[in-house]
């Protein structure tokens, strides 16, 4: 018998789309929850048409961005402009433990699918809303993506070089970890509360706030010390060397962090003690830090001679924290640790064929937490879910599809 995931038995009617919401429900699905992704050909999840595409051919079932965020889910297509579709989706919600969405406030209300409407038919529902700004307030209707949330939350301002434009993370970072992880944590806590008391509840997340929580030290620097933190490149406030150093090859870098004098001595020994390392300015942490620009230049000239991987391994053996600045090819083709953990999983997708997915970033000693299936095609499971959850037969289901209700 196949083991069931730890969240087996929990059903989610999932209206989330694009980044943060889809990633949150993916975490639930990969842990065994039954996630029914509600989508529509009439209003596509924009990740379905976001690159990259299999063979660079655009198509609603060909996006790698979409597929990685929607593993282990089933897709149910419906046209919410049709009253019959709304009735069906309410019946699905009634049979669910969780309803999730990350629309701007007002969208679910207009569809008659807001918390109060769902609660009326399913009193103990756990209803997760993850809009950008939260359900009320002067900016509640403002919209955005991970990159604008990164800007609004301070992350963008704080990352980069002080004398240049802020650089940020180069990604829609808040979508990928801060928002989905906080969302799932809150949702699981609410599930626990329901198990103990029978009470459901509404979880209202403003997608700016989890990221600000992760930037708390910058806020406290201001509210306690009156200092507005600016971006400082790769500098650490007290340690040096702390940065990335060039290695042999094109655009190859090694991150090196030295926090103790013992580690500094170990680094010098690994480099075979070139003459510049004898300078007494490098003997103490405070002096290394005070002279870090010069230190970075000399160290960079030394590391340039090395293969990054070899220098990393030698430094690590000597007790110095060092790591390659890995690109996607390093991570997928060469990193022995990710390979050991089985991080990269190849799943067979109905249209894309065998393609690459991220495994969940944690291993459980006994439960099954893993990718159950590749991303679904748009509407792939509509008939199956109708039959299984709502006892609506395939003939009737096909008729609703043909009439444009379930597309």
């Amino acid at each position, binding site marked *: 018998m196949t083991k069931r995931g730890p969240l087996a038995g929990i059903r989610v009617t999932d209206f989330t789309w694009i980044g943060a919401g889809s990633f949150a429900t993916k975490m639930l699905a990969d842990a065994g929850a039954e996630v029914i992704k509600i989508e529509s050909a009439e209003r596509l999840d924009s990740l379905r048409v976001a690159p990259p595409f299999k063979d660079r051919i655009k198509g609603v079932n060909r996006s790698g961005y979409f597929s990685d965020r929607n593993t282990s889910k089933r897709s149910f297509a419906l046209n919410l402009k049709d009253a019959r579709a709304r009735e069906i989706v309410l019946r699905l919600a009634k049979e669910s433990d969780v309803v999730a969405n990350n629309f701007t406030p007002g969208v679910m209300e207009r569809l008659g699918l807001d918390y109060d409407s769902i609660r009326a038919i399913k009193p103990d529902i756990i209803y997760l809303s993850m809009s950008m700004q939260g359900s009320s307030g002067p900016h509640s209707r403002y919209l955005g993506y991970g990159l604008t949330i990164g800007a609004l939350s301070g992350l963008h301002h704080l990352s980069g070089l002080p004398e240049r434009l802020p650089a940020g993370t180069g990604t829609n970072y808040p979508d990928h970890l801060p928002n989905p992880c906080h969302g799932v944590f809150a949702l699981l806590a609410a599930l626990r509360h329901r198990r103990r008391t029978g009470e459901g509840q509404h979880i209202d997340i403003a997608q700016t706030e989890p990221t600000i929580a992760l930037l708390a030290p910058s806020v406290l620097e201001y509210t306690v010390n009156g200092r507005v933190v600016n971006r400082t490149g790769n500098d650490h406030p007290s340690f040096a060397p702390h940065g990335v150093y060039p290695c042999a090859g094109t655009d190859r870098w090694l991150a090196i962090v030295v926090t103790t004098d013992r580690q500094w001595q170990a680094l010098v020994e690994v480099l075979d003690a070139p003459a510049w390392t004898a300078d007494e300015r490098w003997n103490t942490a405070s002096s290394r830090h005070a002279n870090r620009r010069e230190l970075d230049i000399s160290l960079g000239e030394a590391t340039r001679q090395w293969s990054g991987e070899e220098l990393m391994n030698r430094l690590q053996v000597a007790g110095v924290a060092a790591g390659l600045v890995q690109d996607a090819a390093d991570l997928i083709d060469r990193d022995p640790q990710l390979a050991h953990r089985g991080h990269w999983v190849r799943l067979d997708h109905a249209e894309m064929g065998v393609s690459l997915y991220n495994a969940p970033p*944690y291993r459980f000693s006994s439960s099954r937490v893993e990718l159950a299936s590749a991303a679904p095609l748009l509407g792939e499971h509509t008939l199956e879910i109708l039959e299984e959850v709502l006892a609506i037969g395939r003939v009737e289901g096909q008729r609703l599809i043909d009439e444009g209700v379930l597309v």
Partner: protein
Amino acid sequence: MTSALAGLRVLDMSGPLGNYCGKLFGDLGADVILIEPPGGTQLRSEPPFIHDRADIESSLAFAYANTSKRSLTLDLEDQGDRATFLRLATTADLVIETFSPGTLGSLGLDYTALMSTNKRLVLTSITPFGQTGPYAQYQADDLVGLAMGGLLYLGGYPDTPPITTYGNQAYAAANLCGAVASMIAVLAAEQTGTGEHVDVSMQEAVVMALETAAQFYDLEGAIKKRWGGKQRHAGTGVFPCKDGYIYFMAGGVGGNRFWRLSCDWFEEEGVPGSAQFRDERWFTHEFLSTDEAKTIFHDVFVPYAANFTMEELYRKGQDKHVPIAPVSTPADLLKNPQLQHREFFVEMKHFLLPESFLAPGAPYALSRTPWRMSRPAPRLGEHNAEILEELGMASQPRPTRRAVGATR
């Protein structure tokens, strides 16, 4: 009001990779005991510090990540303290630890040992690279974690080395994935009566944040690179304005429904040169990706934006339903009317400060079981006597070691 996590006991014996994970449990009502070595947990030596005094009670990074916890000092090298820990572990639902793989085992405190007296216990181990494998014993602080997980490569400018992200985001990734996995395992253990050893890798957690870098390589054979300071495609990026910078995503993600709305905005504002944006080529991703498109967009938009403040552009753009936002500084956040409306910042106390101060509050609003900072971060060993008494163990005076928290 009841708490969502009432009745759960969490032993947080972690450092920077796990303290925020413990906080998430504490702020939703779990009884979280921070188990610290006699010199204090590592985060106590992380900046920033109150008035820059670098002692073990002054770290603001520590103060934030350890709210709603009690502190118990235990020297796990000491047999008596190990017995205390084992006793405590029989009362716990979750242990969060961040020692190098093998450390707990060498102390006789590995999962098998803990499980033998408490079958429902979840042990979450959060480490740089995971419990086993060729890099399991490698060291990594935040920068190395960000590098090995691939996010560092995407940060910075095309003409500079890769540049890190503020705020120890590799640690954050490890904490967040640790929290999700722990919560999944605790929920299951409450139902089945059987716990779990959860193995979380910081590197792997960071890999989750690469957006599409892995899929671009897999599907298109392309390596994504850093593009900071540039437009990602025309209309998407940072632009200067009167009093700072704004972030604009004129084209949105994937579909280009926002491009037309951006055109409407420019037309209404009478932005010189913006009429051309309605030409067909501006609706294709291919053209928006060209240097030509980026240059034209810059030359049209920046002179317009220079007339307005961040706040004005934010309001004007959002009124037209286009994704635009100010590039806020931490000081701007405190003035943000939306965050004020949500009462996001909350009063926090610290025993070294006479007045309370504002800190980020609830990252989520739960209608029935609200988030709550039940107490400020503890002083080192503040709750030793209280916790030992609860265990029915007399608090035994023992020689205190000199505090060594300021070095690591």
